[in-house]
């Protein structure tokens, strides 16, 4: 290793020296080229050695499984016996069986709760925070609102599983304000289970969106607001005309994170409802897990997995495009 390093050192020096003396004659110019191309080749080799460990781990544990997912999706396989080629049949099954197609529909319903509400509400809360919460009160508010983001999603699922239970806190509050008639086991109710899971998502993601958007606001030029106020702009005009357009990038980030969290949801749903009651909160992540590990239908699970990956890509790419002036 040491020798190789010294060799490269020598090589660089040689190139540098030759660069200084390249105006002398044709013969040194020729050997200058050889030395340079050697140095470049060596440089390239060393550069690739730098990338190699990361690339290997990524290839073995992400790219290979990804390609295997695509491969499995064209077979019928129980995980043990021989694999049978079935072409696109698994994909057709996902699109034709209502229970499977419903998982994709549920994922999009979750987007409304995980993404739309936290981002919209986050914008409002962040702009309120920016205006009224300075100093230590603001810092305390941000710390507290951020708490749900650092605990495991599984813990959020368990905590809210209890809060939303029949004897839980939510029903108790409802009874206290005279709404005793609407109390129920929220996560066990066919109509309310999905919105309840959505509520958990809002609790987890609202603080994250708020703090992120607030950070964006603090980077804006206060003079913009000053001049708007001189023109007599109120809070709402200021919000629509200045804050939202200038925070395009931060809003894009919030949308990307929250939409991915919704479409690829697993932890919260697994712990809070496991997809039930019936199929009411089944999302692709849960369905893939059930198909593969309890029903041993690897091909079908993989087809759903491939569709989920395409779905996330198709939804995220336009958001990224819109929120960035310059792509990669």
């Amino acid at each position, binding site marked *: 290793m040491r020798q190789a390093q010294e060799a490269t*050192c020598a090589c660089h020096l040689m190139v540098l020296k030759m660069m200084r003396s390249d105006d002398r004659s044709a013969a040194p110019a020729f050997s200058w080229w050889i030395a340079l191309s050697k140095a470049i080749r060596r440089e390239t080799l060393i*550069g690739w050695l*730098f*990338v190699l*460990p990361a690339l290997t*781990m*990524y290839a*073995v*544990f*992400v*790219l290979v*499984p990804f390609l*295997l997912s695509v491969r*499995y999706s064209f077979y019928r396989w129980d995980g043990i016996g021989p694999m049978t080629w079935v072409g696109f049949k698994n994909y057709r099954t996902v699109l034709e069986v209502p229970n499977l197609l419903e998982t994709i529909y549920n994922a999009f319903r979750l987007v409304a709760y995980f993404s739309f509400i936290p981002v919209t509400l986050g914008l409002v*809360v962040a702009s309120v925070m920016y*205006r*009224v919460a300075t100093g230590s*009160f603001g810092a305390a*508010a941000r710390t*507290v*609102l*951020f*708490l749900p*983001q*650092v605990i*495991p*999603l*599984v*813990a959020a699922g368990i*905590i*809210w599983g*209890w*809060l939303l*239970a029949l*004897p*839980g*806190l939510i029903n*108790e509050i409802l009874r206290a304000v005279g709404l005793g008639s609407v109390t129920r086991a929220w996560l066990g109710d066919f109509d309310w289970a999905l919105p309840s899971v959505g509520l958990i998502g809002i*609790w987890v993601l*609202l*603080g994250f969106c708020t703090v*992120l958007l607030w950070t964006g606001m603090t980077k804006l030029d206060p003079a913009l607001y000053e001049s708007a106020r001189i023109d007599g702009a109120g809070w709402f005009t200021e919000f629509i005309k200045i804050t939202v357009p200038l925070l395009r*990038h*931060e809003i894009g*980030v919030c949308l990307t994170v929250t939409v991915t969290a919704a479409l*690829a949801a*697993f932890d919260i749903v*697994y*712990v809070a409802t496991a997809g039930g009651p019936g199929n009411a909160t089944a999302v*692709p*992540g849960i369905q*893939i*897990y059930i198909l*593969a590990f309890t029903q041993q239908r690897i091909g079908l699970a993989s087809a759903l*997995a*491939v569709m*989920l*990956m395409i779905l*996330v*890509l198709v939804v995220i790419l336009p958001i990224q495009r819109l929120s960035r002036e310059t792509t990669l």
Partner: protein
Amino acid sequence: MRISRAELWAGRSLLFGLMAITILPFISIFMTALHPSGTVPRGLEWPDDPQWGNFVEAFKVAEMPALLASSTFIVLAVVPVALAISTMAGFAIGHLRIPGSRALLFLFVFGLTLPFTGIIVPLYYLERDMGIYNTRLAIVLPLIGLYMPFAVFWMRAHFVNMPAEISEAARVDGVSTWGLFWRIHLPLARAPISSLGILMSVWTWNQFLIALVLVEDPTQRTMAGALGAFQGHYATDIPLLCAGTVIIVLPTLVLFVLFQRQIIAALLQGSVKG
């Protein structure tokens, strides 16, 4: 900025309300955890006779010492390795700009949108074939791989903004590529590396799906994975389940309060760059 009194109070009450909504769930499970084991208490009620022993009981049945050791081991195995290899790759792609950098970057970025659920099934069969299923390596190795798209992207974003002059000056002094990386660029990259380290530690500690699928023994899992198993066993004993949840969440909460500024900054930067 001049703000009317009315707005000030309205705004602050809104924030207080939201803070209360955020905190209340934690208070509720804490109080529930103090009720006698096996009872079904009300949502928010201080017990007549607080059962502090529930925490001891949960500490024992959740095998907390083993869990803490396991989670710590997994974090310590994943994070340094992932940091080292992603920093090197980010340096080569972002700063050395080796031939093929663009293609490499594209390849890594492709992985950014891949949900874990999409590749978990083949990962299971792959690990069975490799013989690492149901060991801690079954969590450690895939996590390192799964973090690569983000980590390389993150480190590249740092190195791509480093002025080329720094390296040119060092080259004239005869510094090798490795020396350039180790002695010049690594010390300058301390800030993004530590943010990335915090991020990956939190993600690893909280990782659930990988642990659930690839390791059967809860004491070999991450904290979050063990919590899932705990819920499976004690779903009906609500006070004990709450006590277990409190204990498992506590280390994260304490760390967060201690390092809140760094963690918030890291998580936010992480999402902005991602």
